């Protein structure tokens, strides 16, 4: 553990009373300094021109080579990149932190376009497990089906699958919107914390299991509710939001959203430790 002590020479942040300690030894601590411009630099981002378009055939590349090549193209200012022959490879298009039009002409494997912050992505095929995991911002549209853990832990942006998705869609979701045109598997919205999930088709068992917060809208049948997930009445603002969102998402524009089922957290698990044993049983 680093050794903490007070310092006599104060930085600007210290003089503002933000902290007093300094770290010594092997650990180097860098404090925020508003005078240093590099503190405002978002590392790994590029200014790109959407009108500058190129194609990249990744048939003979592994995912590292392909991602490095995408990075190089963004560095050259290309704002629209079309990926040919992705062939179900894993981890393609990950870690893109700037605006970009990224088009995959084919299918992706696991962890496609994970940890992105800003790009607009269209996949003209299917995606495997954990697509767009940890997405911060941007828009991702999948034309066909998706595997399990679709949109795991997303924090923002719009994630749209026009087909059906596997189990645990939106697991640990912390923000943003996930829209599914077809059916969704078991444990949809498992431990969801914020954001919205919209499923136009049916969902499997244990919907919204142990969700903390957030909202799930289901157009079809529900296999079963998970622990602490409850039905809630649809309001006018729900209906207006759904209509607007489905239109923007280019999916289900004619869908009668007023007949959807709204599912939220019962929030009994919030005070789980304070409950009496019989109440705990009821909560579970």
């Amino acid at each position, binding site marked *: 553990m680093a050794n903490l002590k007070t310092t006599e020479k104060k930085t600007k942040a210290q003089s503002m009373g933000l902290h007093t300690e300094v770290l010594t030894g092997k650990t180097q601590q860098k404090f925020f300094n508003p005078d240093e411009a590099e503190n405002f630099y978002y590392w790994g981002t590029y200014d790109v021109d959407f009108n500058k378009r190129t194609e990249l055939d990744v048939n003979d590349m592994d995912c590292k080579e392909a991602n490095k090549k995408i990075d190089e193209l963004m560095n050259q200012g290309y704002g629209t990149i079309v990926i040919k022959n992705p062939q179900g490879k894993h981890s393609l298009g990950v870690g893109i932190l700037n605006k970009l039009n990224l088009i995959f002409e084919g299918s992706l494997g696991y962890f496609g376009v994970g940890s992105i912050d800003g790009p607009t992505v269209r996949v003209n095929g299917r995606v495997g497990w954990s697509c767009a995991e940890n997405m911060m911002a941007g828009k991702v549209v999948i034309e066909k*089906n998706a595997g399990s853990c679709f949109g795991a832990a997303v924090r923002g942006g719009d994630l749209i699958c026009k087909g059906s998705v596997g*189990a645990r869609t939106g697991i640990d979701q912390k923000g943003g919107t996930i829209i599914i045109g077809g059916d969704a598997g078991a444990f949809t919205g498992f431990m969801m914390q914020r954001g919205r999930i919209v499923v136009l088709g049916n969902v499997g068992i244990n919907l919204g299991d142990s969700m903390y917060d957030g909202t799930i809208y289901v157009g079809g049948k529900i296999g079963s509710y998970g622990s602490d997930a409850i039905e809630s009445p649809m309001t006018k603002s729900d209906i207006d939001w759904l209509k607007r969102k489905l239109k923007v998402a280019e999916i289900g524009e004619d869908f009668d959203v007023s007949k959807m089922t709204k599912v939220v957290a019962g929030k009994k698990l919030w005070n789980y430790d304070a409950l009496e044993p019989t109440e705990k049983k009821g909560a579970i």
Partner: protein
Amino acid sequence: MCGIAGLIHRGKSSNVGQELQGMLQALKHRGEDSTGYALYGDTDGQNFIMRFKVGENVGEGSSSVMEDVSVYDERKKIVDSYISQMGAKIVKEERTLPYSLRYEIDYDKGDLLEFSQKIESIPGVEILSMGKSLEVIKDLGNAKAVCDRYNLGDLVGTHAIGHARMATESGVDIKSAHPFWGYPFSDVSVVHNGQLTNYWNNRRILENKGMRFMSECDSELIAVYLAEKMRNGATLEEGMKDSLSGLDGVFTYFVATKNSLGMAKDTMAAKPLVLYESDELVAMGSEEIAIRSVLPQEIDTYDPFDGEVKVWQI
């Protein structure tokens, strides 16, 4: 982790040995401790094909004990004499490796339980498969290494299932490798990706009913479980549906018979499976890249949902 793959051609034969090798090699990052093939070849259906081993591969990474080849020879002699005693006749004999053999046997009694029990009463001998179409080939190494070692690339047939193994629950050896034969049923084989948590309870129950286990690999339970169900009159599909509640844990498994191929996924959908289905071909694997090795063009695939069981006929 492990990876599984399978395919079935409907209404025609194809080079399933080469195709499955490509699928399993694409999944080699999921495990290279051992690789196994269950291939359903085009045969005349007259004789039984028995794949068996008289020892283990003791190469690099193996958890088996080295034995002299003379020990294998001695075991083979006893197998030959027992086959004769059972009223069967060896029509063709191939010794691919010192410890691995393939016999074509003329045996008309049809009771494989008695036959298998007799052969496997010899210490160190295990029947890997027995059937009129099925051949199970499994050994240490990745898909290409095993395919080359056993010259499987030319095998023509209708369907096949295979497994790329990362050993977690039991040793790195052939006896723990997949596929498992659905002993004592002719032409039944199983591969599995996952972990069964009620293995020992089920094993004790099944052993008390006279079923046999050759390894301590939890996946073997699925083959034995289904075999016991079928022995009691259930169809393959009924047995598979029953397994969703009878087996505890996480699993996706494939089972194949002479004329069919099936898949089952646990009720938590915890293990991956991607499926491609058309009138001519069904191909499935733990990851899409396995299917891409036989279908490089753009195709529609999907993940089966939790608790799904599907069976296709050739």
